[in-house]
């Protein structure tokens, strides 16, 4: 019951957060020079045509007026329309968001098992050969730029071996899994090391606690002590970092989306920024914000569930 109240409270807080996000985005977009109309009509259009269209889209109004118009429509559930495509922003988001969400969830699914396995393995044999290898590979995965690695993966797994498609999203669910495998894999390659390193450090830290002695005195094997005592006590920092990374993945997916020609939010966002398609940027940011709020909330609830000392 308390939890429900907490959730409701947090969701209520989402309102100012969303407002803040929209204000900042709007201000920044307004402050960024570059004319959407110029990009829209192409290089050959005359100044008069551009002025006309600017006027038609209300882009010549003062920023504040534009913002309030936007806000008014937003409250009515209208995210506005893309300047470039003249389709509702909500349609663009409905088209791109599931792709990225799928990608992020897929990445998470590919990421978590190795993170846990490797961190535990490495911590339990601290400084052993396995630990050294894991750490070295981790740094390797971390230091290799995603776009470069992604390119190699595409060439190798996609072209040379022909195991996976190198582009697109596919039409059916199994298709999605197949198409997004390489993008998700390329992303996990750098996410896994970050989390492994954090988790490993925490595991080592917890291994020195007194309650570990209690476990040993009970005759529990190393494995069990790890599983039921050390591990739960170590996950909090990793979980928090994980939340931040997941949230970043949404917006940061642009790199793999570009390399693998995946029609997702990251690409929509960057394309819209480059085209100064204000309302799409706005709408996409709000959707990111909402997702972030949910991810953070989930992690906070999970933290409180794991650690009773953490009151949400």
């Amino acid at each position, binding site marked *: 019951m308390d939890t429900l109240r907490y959730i409701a409270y947090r969701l209520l807080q989402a309102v100012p957060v969303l407002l803040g996000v929209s204000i900042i985005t709007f201000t920044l977009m307004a402050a960024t*020079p570059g004319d959407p109309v110029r990009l829209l009509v192409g290089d050959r*259009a005359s100044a008069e045509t551009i002025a006309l269209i600017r006027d038609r889209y209300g882009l010549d109004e003062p920023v504040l007026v534009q913002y309030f118009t936007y806000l008014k429509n937003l409250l009515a559930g209208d995210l506005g329309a893309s300047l470039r495509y003249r389709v509702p922003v909500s349609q663009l988001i409905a088209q791109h968001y599931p792709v990225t969400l799928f990608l992020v969830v897929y990445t998470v699914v590919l990421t978590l098992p190795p993170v846990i396995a490797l961190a535990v393995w490495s911590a339990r044999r601290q400084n052993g050969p396995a630990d050294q290898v894991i750490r070295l590979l981790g740094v390797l995965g971390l230091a290799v730029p995603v776009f470069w690695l992604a390119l190699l993966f595409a060439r190798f797994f996609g072209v040379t071996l022909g195991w996976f498609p190198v582009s697109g999203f596919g039409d059916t669910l199994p298709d999605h899994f197949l198409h997004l495998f390489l993008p998700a894999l390329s992303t996990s390659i750098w996410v896994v090391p970050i989390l492994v390193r954090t988790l490993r450090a925490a595991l080592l830290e917890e291994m020195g606690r007194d309650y570990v002695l209690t476990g040993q005195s009970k005759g529990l094997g190393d494995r069990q002590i790890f599983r039921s005592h050390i591990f739960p006590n170590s996950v909090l920092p990793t979980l928090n970092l994980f939340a931040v990374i997941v949230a970043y993945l949404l917006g940061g997916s642009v790199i793999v989306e570009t390399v693998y020609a995946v029609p997702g939010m990251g690409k929509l966002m960057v394309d819209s920024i480059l085209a100064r398609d204000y309302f799409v940027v706005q709408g996409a940011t709000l959707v990111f914000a909402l997702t972030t709020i949910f991810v953070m909330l989930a992690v906070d609830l999970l933290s409180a569930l794991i650690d009773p000392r953490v009151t949400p």
Partner: protein
Amino acid sequence: QDAIRIASPNKVTVLDPIVSAAGGNIEAYGQLYARLLRRGADGALEPGLAESWEISEDGLTYTFEMRDAKFSDGSPITAEDAAFSLTRVAKDEASAYPAGFAPIKEVTAVDEDTLQITLEHPSAPMLSNLEIFNAGIVSKDDVDARGVEGAFASDPVTSGPYMVEDWKPNDRITLTANPNFWREGLPKIQKVELIEVSDDNARATMAMAGEIDVNRSVPWAQVEEVNATEGVSVALEPSTVMYLVLPNHDKAPFDDLNVRKAAAMALDRAAITEAVTRGNAEVANSTFSNALNYHDASLQPPAYDPAAARKLLEDNGLTGTEINMMITPSFEQLATLLKAQWDAVGFKTTVERVDAGLWWSKLAEGDYQVTVNWYYNETEDPDLAVRWALCDTCGSDSYYTNYHNEEVNRLTDEALRELDDDKRAELYSRIQQITLDELAQIPLYYAPFSIAYADRVKGLTLTPALQWTLEEAELTAD
């Protein structure tokens, strides 16, 4: 599989042919909207929706006889529709590129099948201009019924070989054959997917993996490699594209002819061309593309002579002049070469990289010193090119370089009205001479299109006017 998949870095953003003159749209408009005339395989103008035409003695009245064709929705394509469409492109305020139709006084439907265009003054390239991408015929009834926004939103009534099956903005547009297309039995390919893939490598990989049939733009660095790939070959197709250095004539230091001259002489344009295009392009010799009519092959810009360039700067006390070169990300390699060569003769160059959005607005506002870019021309007639790049009173301030020369402006108009071929050649030669002498721009190279086709694609090319010849292309079973 009977769909042809074409990946291009350019995206489709609007389906209304008059609204945009951006690359991706131009390529799509051609498939959706047929024009009065069309280009044959050899590039000559042939009857399109107009079966025949007549031009009055004074060159002011064009009369077209329309053929019995239908829109994709089955309704007949009438002179009324043609008049409506051409009036829009010529006169509508929102028309993005009306330059070629400026001489038009009026377009009227004389009867169901007869269309008449009257001009203010003679225009030599009028016919060829009527073939370009934004002169496509749209359905008046449909626009009347659904309004401009509605008619072109996602499923316009089309007159061309294809119609829209599904449009996913920012991703791909899927076209399907128009059953009512006037050319019997065409198109042969039932389905076309125009996919936007911005990353060069992604397109290359997709082509190698057989996920696309056509790669619209193969980076020079990969031409050889892709060509060597089994099942794919790269075609270098003629284009009117030329790459050039754009100096701002309104701003120091490039308002000074000496600076422009030194900058031009500092550049080993042959080496630059070789380095950037891996030998796939031709060094430019004129302010005109070599694919344009009346291109003067005898001209030459100042030759590569770094010593002379340095001396010129020294003599004029210009050594150490600071240059700010604004570029978009795709010009990094070129910018590096220019900077190195300019600095070698005594300039001090900084490279400022901006995104395309910023680049355009800075360019249009004249807020730059020098930049590099390319442009293409829709027809082989140089009129539009001159208006775009060299004439400052023709609407675009000489490609926003603010290059101003009264004589060039005058010659531009004269050449438009002149119907005699030889005389026009002379006029355009003169324009090239002047603009090269004054270094309105520093021409770099003439680049062909480099397009990769899967072997199963037959008969497909991209015309210099940026139109795919999809209606006659075929997919063979491989």
